[in-house]
């Protein structure tokens, strides 16, 4: 039961926006659609809502085909990336409008509006017009209007992307709590792996209109099946190094060699791609196994209290994530350390061959 998409294609003006998407969202599940911009997230959401029709394929709700059913006849709620409210209605009327249209009795409307307003801390703003609110408050109003309906399907299209950092964190926490209480199928799109990890539930990795991988959020994080999925599911994108396995030795580039250890043991000789997220590179040696990669600094970028150092190791561009604010001179040489036990290994076709053991005590790191 729940929402099912069967072989959904969406082609607009000869351009394929979605290609053969087959997905299943059980009722009550929380789902994150993760993908870069133009991956087809919004298109997919619009098809689920019934705003657009798939070019091919079917949409089923509880086993019933609803492909051509008008959006008005479906029980869905949607929050857009832009702050969309009815500008001529007060916040109260905005939130109440879906209930009024359903013909809910006046007292119940009042009770439900006040309940959801309390939840999203909109109570003191109920008499204002949306134009008199800040961006965060406007988006909270939009979310409140979607929540109050108690729809079977709640769609959120990058709802937090236009908000500033602090507000985003705050609202994300609230939303996570609200989703846990609700009974509807939640589909939440985002470009940020961090956001996916924080919201939990299931993740669907979309890329160029295709589904790359689905599964529980943290599981997919630890076992991306393809190089592309790993790229989408890390921010900054995962770093790749060419790896040549010869016997019990592995070689990165020309000079750096190390003995196969941990999950790399037993790799058949051949050429591979080693993937390592930016937060698994260190400028200090941490274990005896670490390989040292001499690299040139190309750019060091400070983001909050973190520093991203873009370096180049023999033609491989790498990003190193360091905590704290550090400055590195452009062109200077640094030694980047990486633990081979942390390598994701992909074969030449880009499929995962070996992934590091997941330390069960550790939740997935931010970023």
């Amino acid at each position, binding site marked *: 039961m729940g929402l099912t998409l069967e072989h959904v294609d969406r082609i607009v003006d000869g351009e394929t926006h979605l290609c053969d998407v087959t997905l299943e969202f059980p009722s009550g599940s929380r789902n994150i659609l993760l993908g870069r911009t133009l991956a087809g997230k919004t298109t997919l959401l619009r098809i689920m*809502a019934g*705003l657009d029709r798939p070019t091919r394929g079917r949409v089923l709700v509880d086993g019933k085909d609803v492909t051509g059913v*008008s*959006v*008005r006849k479906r029980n*869905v*709620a*949607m929050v*857009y990336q*832009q702050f*969309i409210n*009815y*500008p*001529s*209605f007060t916040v109260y009327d905005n939130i109440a*409008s*879906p209930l009024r*249209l*359903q013909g809910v009795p006046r007292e119940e409307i009042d009770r439900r509006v006040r309940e959801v307003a309390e939840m999203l801390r909109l109570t003191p703003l109920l008499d204002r017009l949306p134009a008199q609110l800040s961006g965060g408050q406007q988006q909270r109003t*939009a979310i409140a*209007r979607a929540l109050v*309906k108690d729809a079977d399907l709640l769609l959120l299209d990058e709802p937090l992307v236009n908000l500033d950092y602090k507000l985003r964190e705050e609202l994300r926490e609230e939303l996570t709590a609200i989703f846990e209480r609700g009974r509807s199928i939640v589909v939440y799109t985002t470009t940020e792996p961090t956001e996916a990890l924080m919201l939990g539930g299931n993740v669907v990795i979309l890329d160029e209109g295709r589904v790359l991988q689905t599964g529980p959020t943290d599981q997919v994080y630890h076992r991306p099946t393809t190089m592309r999925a790993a790229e989408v599911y890390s921010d900054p994108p995962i770093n790749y190094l060419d790896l040549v396995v010869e016997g019990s030795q592995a070689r990165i580039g020309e000079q750096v060699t190390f003995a196969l250890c941990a999950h790399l043991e037993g790799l058949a000789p051949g050429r591979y791609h080693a993937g390592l997220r930016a937060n698994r590179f260190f400028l200090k040696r941490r274990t005896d196994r670490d390989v040292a990669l001499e690299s040139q600094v190309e750019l060091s970028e400070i983001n909050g209290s973190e520093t991203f150092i873009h370096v180049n190791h023999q033609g491989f561009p790498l990003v190193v994530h360091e905590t704290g604010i550090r400055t590195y001179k452009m062109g200077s040489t640094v030694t980047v350390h990486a633990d081979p036990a942390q390598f994701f290994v992909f074969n030449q076709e880009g499929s995962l061959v070996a992934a590091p053991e997941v330390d069960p005590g550790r939740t997935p790191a931010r970023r």
Partner: protein
Amino acid sequence: MRVQKRTVALGLYFFLLILPIYWMLNMSLRANADILASFALFPRNATLANYMKIFTDSSWYSGYINSMIYVSLNTIISLTTALPAAYAFSRFRFIGDKHVFFWLLTNRMAPPAVFLLPFFQLYSTFHLIDTHIAVALAHCLFNVPLAVWILEGFMSGIPREIDETAFIDGYSFPRFFLTVFVPLIRAGIGVTAFFCFMFSWVELLLARTLTITNAKPIVATMTRTVSASGLDWGLLAAAGVLTIVPGALVIWFVRNHLAKGFALGRV
């Protein structure tokens, strides 16, 4: 205190603008003999006789009433047809949409005189000559395209997501259109109504041709003041002043929205 050049230039400009209107007001307050006899910057023997004549003589005041009736009719017809049309052009894609949209504008490129004869024959056939609706419909020729263009600009400024949100919330189309959408483009509707009013109010040729006596507009009445005794200057000036008033009133109401209409590049 030094007077700025800008102030002087603007003052001069304003003076030149207001001069003919002042002259008309001046004349309207004088008797014919007075106007022809002497040159005066302001009326020495001011009289309201000209105005009294207009307000008491039914051949004069009915002209105003006729004009107002067909102008209102035209504004209502133009808005009710242009609102859905503009919505369609703004929100939907259909075969030839851009061409039709441009074709609408080309209707404004022909002088109304071109349509005079066909209109006259057509309206005669349907026994519509000398009715208010005849003029109102004829003026739709250039008011509907204009209204569609202005409204389309305002509507395209409203995010499509608002429409979709309303449909997701369960609004039926008419209800959404009237309760959510129309309030959002209030300013645009005001500007459009103003332009419809203005074009219909000042148009003479079609209005005169399609009416005889029952729906004769004020502008036509004014052109017929030449009598055996010559032009009735004072009366004509008074009629002119009274013809400016409704336009000025309407401008006053939409003055804040007009600038937005211009900014959208559609007016």
